[in-house]
């Protein structure tokens, strides 16, 4: 067995096991343990990306997913400050059985599509298109700033909108009714400054 394939099997087993640990009770009971299992899974997946010579994506996977998204998750879990009685034991209900059945059905469909697709393409060797700089920062970056320039800028707008939306959604006071009653002068001042800014515009 070639070394590359062996490494792939080890990494794939790591991905599957850590994702299973995220979902299933021993670790999946507590959200923070699930988050840690998911971070481990992302590291294994980054290893698979590196094996497929997607060097930039392997780095981005670790920096953005394990470094930013999952830190956000752990921060929110700590911010919620869940007590043990707010964490429920996952039970097996009718929903669990129906959901698992649907999931297995989709899995079967995916596998049958995979078998169908790999039937015809068995003899085709597709490995010739790669070269030394494939997946490097230079090459992906060049494509990002030429062919995909407009989507790239749109994604930056999307991230800005998501950041603003997250701040607005997570703001503490969303009740407008309480504000004028409690601090009428402050509300008046805010209205006045609002009016001023409008006048300035």
């Amino acid at each position, binding site marked *: 067995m070639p070394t*590359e394939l062996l490494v*792939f099997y080890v990494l794939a087993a790591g991905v599957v096991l850590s*994702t*299973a640990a*995220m*979902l299933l009770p021993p670790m*999946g009971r507590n959200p923070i343990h699930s*988050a840690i299992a*998911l971070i481990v899974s992302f590291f294994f*997946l980054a290893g*698979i990306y590196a*094996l*497929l010579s*997607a060097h*930039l*994506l392997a780095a981005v996977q670790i920096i*953005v*997913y394990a470094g*930013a*998204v999952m830190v*956000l*998750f752990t921060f*929110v879990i700590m911010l*919620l400050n*869940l007590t043990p009685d*707010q964490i*429920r034991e*996952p039970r097996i209900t009718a*929903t669990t059985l129906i*959901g*698992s059945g649907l*999931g*297995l059905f989709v*899995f079967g469909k*995916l596998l049958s599509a*995979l078998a169908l697709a*790999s039937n015809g393409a068995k003899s085709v060797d*597709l490995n010739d*298109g*790669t*070269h030394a700089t*494939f*997946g490097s920062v230079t*090459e*992906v970056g060049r*494509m*990002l700033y030429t062919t*995909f320039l407009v*989507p790239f800028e749109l*994604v930056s707008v*999307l*991230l800005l*909108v*998501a*950041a603003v939306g*997250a*701040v*607005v*959604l*997570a703001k503490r006071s969303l009740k407008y009714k309480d504000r004028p009653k409690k601090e009428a002068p402050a509300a008046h001042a805010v209205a006045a400054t609002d009016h001023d800014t409008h006048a300035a515009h």
Partner: protein
Amino acid sequence: MTAIPLGHLLGLAAILFTMGLVGVLTRRNLLLILMSIEVMLNAVNLTFVAFSRYNGWTEGHVLAFFLIAIAAAEAAVGLALVLSVFRLKNATYVDELRLLKR
């Protein structure tokens, strides 16, 4: 040349996607549901990377890059929603959310 068959990679992606889907459908904790969605997005990313490796196209990497950005945006908004739901109901379980049911 790579020694890993494409089918193995796609099979791993299918397994990951199914795990994410089952997680979304069966777990009742909002945080676990969001994490399962991340797992599903990662499975799609893996198919992008696998196909671009086997066809020698860099476009797949760029699309995977965009998908990571979208996943980050989704996580930010989703977690903000979890926070506001937690303030409203003091719980992170989806079956507590029945404001429309009397």
